[in-house]
């Protein structure tokens, strides 16, 4: 045992033993990390670069030039053409019509599917009833069923409901197919909220909907953001359902895009195609860019606890 009455006082600075602070050993490491990250970023960003550059070139330049090179002469003609002039059959109004159709389809689909899925998740977590987990299991399993399996029966169901070709039919389809993953997200998120909050609200006399709308929803912004982003991109980008369950005057933008891209007249107008592609992707893309942080937060809250 050490004698503690003594206080230890060694010389304040020990010359020599100091040893200079080594150069930051990690700097090499850092360079490698940033190097690799930049390389990876290149892989991700290059296609976007190509799209943007090509869409700003005129056709002659596209044909002779390097796809990675920036345009010698910037032209917005391809954008104008893609938006307003490109033809499919007799319709030469480009993507403009599809844009509004997409909006008309996406907005109600996103809203309805999120409402349904969030209520599902809420019921699954806070109001468990006999068999609720089984239904959820089936639902999750449904996420793996190839759409093709269900295209045909759904045609029949929609026919019986009189919704075939109606925007609401498509909304219904999107709600159904968005349900598994969204319900999973909401369920995980609500399960991560303290149960005591739910109990407190019950003691306070809030009912099923009162608790949901006034207590849980206001504190679930991140997960609603994630759901919103997933659904907006998913529905906006949908092609298969859009083409099968609607009619030409209601075709969403992706169908229009596919039409423009495939309506080849003489040569493929890559610049117009790229512009059309960019325009189509603009909505989901900007939503991602605007709400990226919330998205990541929501993912962390809802998805990680599988």
């Amino acid at each position: 045992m050490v004698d503690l009455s003594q206080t230890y006082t060694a010389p304040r600075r020990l010359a020599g033993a100091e040893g200079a602070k080594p150069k930051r050993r990690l700097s090499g490491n850092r360079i490698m990390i940033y190097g690799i990250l930049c390389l990876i970023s290149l892989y991700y960003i290059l296609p976007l670069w190509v799209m943007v550059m090509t869409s700003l070139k005129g056709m002659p330049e596209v044909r002779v030039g390097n796809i990675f090179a920036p345009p010698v002469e910037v032209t917005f003609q391809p954008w104008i053409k893609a938006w307003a002039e490109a033809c499919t059959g007799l319709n030469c109004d480009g993507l403009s019509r599809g844009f509004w159709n997409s909006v008309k389809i996406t907005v109600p689909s996103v809203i309805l599917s999120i409402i349904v899925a969030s209520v599902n998740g809420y019921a699954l977590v806070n109001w468990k009833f006999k068999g609720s987990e089984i239904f959820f299991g089936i639902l999750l399993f449904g996420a793996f069923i190839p759409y093709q399996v269900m295209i045909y029966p759904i045609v029949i169901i929609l026919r019986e409901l009189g919704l075939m070709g109606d925007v609401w039919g498509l909304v219904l389809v999107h709600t159904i197919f968005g349900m598994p993953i969204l319900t999973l997200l909401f369920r995980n998120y609500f399960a991560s909220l303290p149960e005591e909050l739910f109990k407190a609200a019950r003691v306070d006399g809030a009912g099923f909907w009162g608790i949901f709308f006034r207590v849980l929803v206001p504190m679930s912004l991140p997960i609603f953001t994630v759901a919103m982003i997933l659904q907006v991109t998913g529905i906006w980008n949908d092609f298969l359902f859009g083409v099968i369950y609607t009619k030409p005057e209601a075709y969403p933008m992706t169908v229009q895009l596919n039409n423009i891209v495939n309506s080849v007249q003489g040569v493929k107008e890559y610049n117009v195609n790229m512009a059309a592609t960019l325009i189509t992707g603009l909505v989901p893309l900007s939503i991602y860019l605007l709400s990226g942080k919330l998205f990541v937060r929501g993912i962390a809250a809802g998805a990680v606890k599988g």
Partner: protein
Amino acid sequence: ADLEVTHWWTSGGEANAVQELAKAFEAKTDHKWVDGAIAGSGNTARPVIISRIIGGDPMAATQLNHGKQAQELIEAGLMLDLTDIAEEGNWAEIIQPKSLLDACTVDGRVYCVPLNIHSIQWMWTSNAAFEKAGIDPVNNWEELKAAAPKLREAGILPLAMGAQGWQEAYLVHNFLSGTSEDLYYAVYRDKDEDTLNSDAVKAVFEELNAARDMYAGGNVQDWNLATAKVINGEAAAQVMGDWAQGEFALAGQKAGEDYNCLIGMGGEPSISTGGDAFYFPLIDNADTTAAQKELAKVLISPESQVAFNLKKGSLPVRGDVDLAAAGPCMQKGLETLAAGKVITGTDQLITPDAVGQIQDLMAEFFGSDMSTEDAHAAFVEIILNDE
């Protein structure tokens, strides 16, 4: 009323042709043509068309290849019966060849309007390409085969084609019918096993093999992009239906001067009379039904027939129209038709299932180094299993 019309005519020449129909319809009636083009090809459009008809929300009129495609829809009572119009317009008389109307007829009732006659037995060649290679334009498949090495040397693709099964399958049909009508019928109509295993059919597959070599390096998907290569002189030839002519016309090229069209690959000059027809799904609305019938009348009218077919590069379905304005290629077709050298199209002889399988087979054959023996064996199997 507004009539929604779906079709998959979206390439340049095709779109111009449809425009004629729409113009005529809107000029002659008070109805409106709402265009519902679906780009891609029939393969993209058909599922949409069929599911909408089945789903109870049909368009008012739609393009379909007549033949077995629509039969079940008709049997299910989903299609409008056009018999009264047909009788009124005396279609039985005016539609030439008669087989076209037969294809629209189920149990004696008429359900579709044949719009044009398409033949697929054409080979299109580029004079500029041969000039570049320093050789004379070829007159048939054999000569093209012989010229291939020289063309390659000059950096010219001997045979252009879109890498899609349906285009590649034309080669099989054309080699068969190009060999002889009998062989063609023995294979597709009679499904005769001996014939299928005969040397004649095997030879067809050797030709396919040659075609595969000549087309290596093509790298396009769409038929009209392949046609564009021929137009530009980058490729020497393309085997494609008569609609390719529309693309040449659109590019301002003249048959004989800039390009040549060879029926039956330069061999037996028989043409099939497949083609497009319009069907009118049954819609429970008297106005629409009336409008549908008016559209049917417009489609078969001589003016529309001429205008449409000139633009599209196909042959009219009426024998009684004046096609003075038709180019040399169309004239060639008309002559062949007049000479009665007409064969029934594959669509009418075998099921869509078999057609699709042949397309798959060709896609595989042209997209890989599958041996001719394997391809032949697979072909025989498909035909024999078809009902």
